């Protein structure tokens, strides 16, 4: 059984790092070029870290590891993130 979740799961972890909500950000998958809201990413949250994958091609778009005092974020899987700023 696929135990993946939605991009909503990214929201809390990334709000520890960013001051804007990442789930409404639009990203472009480096592997296949598909764009979409990060909220639609397929997220594996059981791992020793958070892995978000492109819903179209399953390649990794984002990785996050968090210890008690540090976080590591890999965004190489998106060619850009388009974030909404408060008006």
């Amino acid at each position, binding site marked *: 059984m696929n135990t993946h979740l939605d991009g909503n799961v990214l929201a*809390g972890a990334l709000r520890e790092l960013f001051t804007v909500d990442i789930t409404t950000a639009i990203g472009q998958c480096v592997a296949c070029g598909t764009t979409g809201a990060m909220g639609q990413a397929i997220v594996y949250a059981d791992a020793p870290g958070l892995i978000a994958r492109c819903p179209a091609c399953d390649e990794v778009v984002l990785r996050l590891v968090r210890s008690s005092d540090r976080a590591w974020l890999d965004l190489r899987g998106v060619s850009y993130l388009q974030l909404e700023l408060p*008006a």
Partner: protein
Amino acid sequence: MARAAVLGRLTWQVATVAAVREETATARTIVLDLPGWPGHQAGQHVDVRLTAPDGYSAQRSYSIASPPGGAPGGAAGAATLELTVQRLADGEVSPYLADVLEPGDPLELRGPIGGWFVWNPTSGGPVLLVAGGSGVVPLMAMIRTRAVSGSHAPFRLVYSVREPGTALYAGELADLATADAGLDVTYVYTRTTPPGWPTPAGRISAGILTAGQAARPDLAVFVCGPTGFVETAADLLVDAGYQPSAIKTERFGPSGGQQ
């Protein structure tokens, strides 16, 4: 040139349990007071953290059940929010929230979290809400928000439960649907139906989800529940011609979730 303040980074806050309310035999609502709560949108959640005396901690996410502006019936602007927690027998956090927590206790949480799986009254278009079990919680926040805001956006809730008695908010949903023709509630019973139910027990189908209607281009769909349920419902809708980009999903995970 002036801009609204940028959101701060998410930090843990301590709420106080104001009241608890049994919803069903296995679920209860926790009413929380949190002065300084910045408000939230329907569909957002909070992360709850429990810490043992030796420092061990466990964290889970819970959808906010109350509409923005306080709980239904609460004072406008009241700094309260409500969470509805389903007790999972082998859960680590939910038995504590459902059985041990009592009024006066502190509860550490952070939020509100999530900007994608949300509904605001500024959206006037029709909405289809599809709930599996405790997945109804964030959708109930949307329904309550619609009620307090006076929105006339047509709402339809398809709520799949195992048997009568396990459905959350049944009385409130019945009252709201009776009072407002713009809210339609359809139950799907997967194991045992109520007496006199016109159809045998069974899972959701495309027919029930679409009610025989093609999707309007401005329709927004929110699906929430255990992973298997959400995937089934989303697949049925897409196969029926609904746009994948119009469907927002919140999977709770294979166990049906909140633990």
